[in-house]
């Protein structure tokens, strides 16, 4: 009886774990983001209020235009309009999922913004947290290694 109570209390405090390298993205999330299993993707989590994201995103868009890799942006602004305005102002060309309900970001649970997840066959291959100088060059290098 004592053991049962202790286990029940312990399990009641466990929260959902963040997605890490090697983890598989849940099927429903893959479907929601319309991900194809044969392609390599970069999921880029950003917000309009994130200064580092604003600096980095135009370079990410260039990478997408050059067809180096498929990119899906995930905007986490509270108001979708703010995200849409931000995307329009920066003239981002890659598809953006507006996660105002925060379901997507809660699943991935990144420890900082911007957050980039390299995904292949539904599996997380690599993660970058925070802004990186010359991210376009970094992605190009990483993609050479992945392919």
């Amino acid at each position: 009886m004592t053991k049962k109570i202790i286990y029940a209390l312990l399990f009641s405090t466990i929260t959902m774990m963040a997605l890490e390298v090697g983890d598989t993205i849940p099927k429903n999330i893959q479907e929601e983001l319309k991900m194809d299993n044969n392609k390599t993707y970069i999921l880029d989590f950003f917000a309009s209020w994130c200064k580092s994201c604003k600096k980095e995103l135009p370079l990410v868009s260039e990478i997408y235009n050059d067809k180096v890799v498929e990119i899906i942006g995930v905007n986490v602004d509270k108001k979708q309009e703010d995200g849409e305005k931000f995307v329009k102002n920066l003239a981002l060309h890659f598809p953006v999922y507006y996660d105002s309900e925060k379901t997507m970001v809660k699943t991935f649970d990144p420890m900082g913004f911007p957050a980039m997840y390299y995904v292949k066959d539904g599996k997380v291959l690599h993660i970058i947290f925070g802004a990186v100088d010359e991210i376009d060059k970094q992605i190009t290098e990483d993609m050479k290694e992945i392919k």
Partner: protein
Amino acid sequence: MIKLTAITIIALSMMGCSIVKEVKPWEKETLARPIMQFGSIHPEMTKFESHTYFSKEASRGGSGVAGGGCGCN
């Protein structure tokens, strides 16, 4: 029975330690606003104050960092 009650009370009180909720990076929208920076009520006012300080003291800086709030780096 006393032992069981004691264990339950200890376990429940330890659960109370986890009440403080961490602010996740995507919840820092309000914290990232310029108005949330240390200093004056408004960023323009901070600029004005730092200008006055520089004119009087012939020195500047050491008043914090700009921007941030997204939890990165």
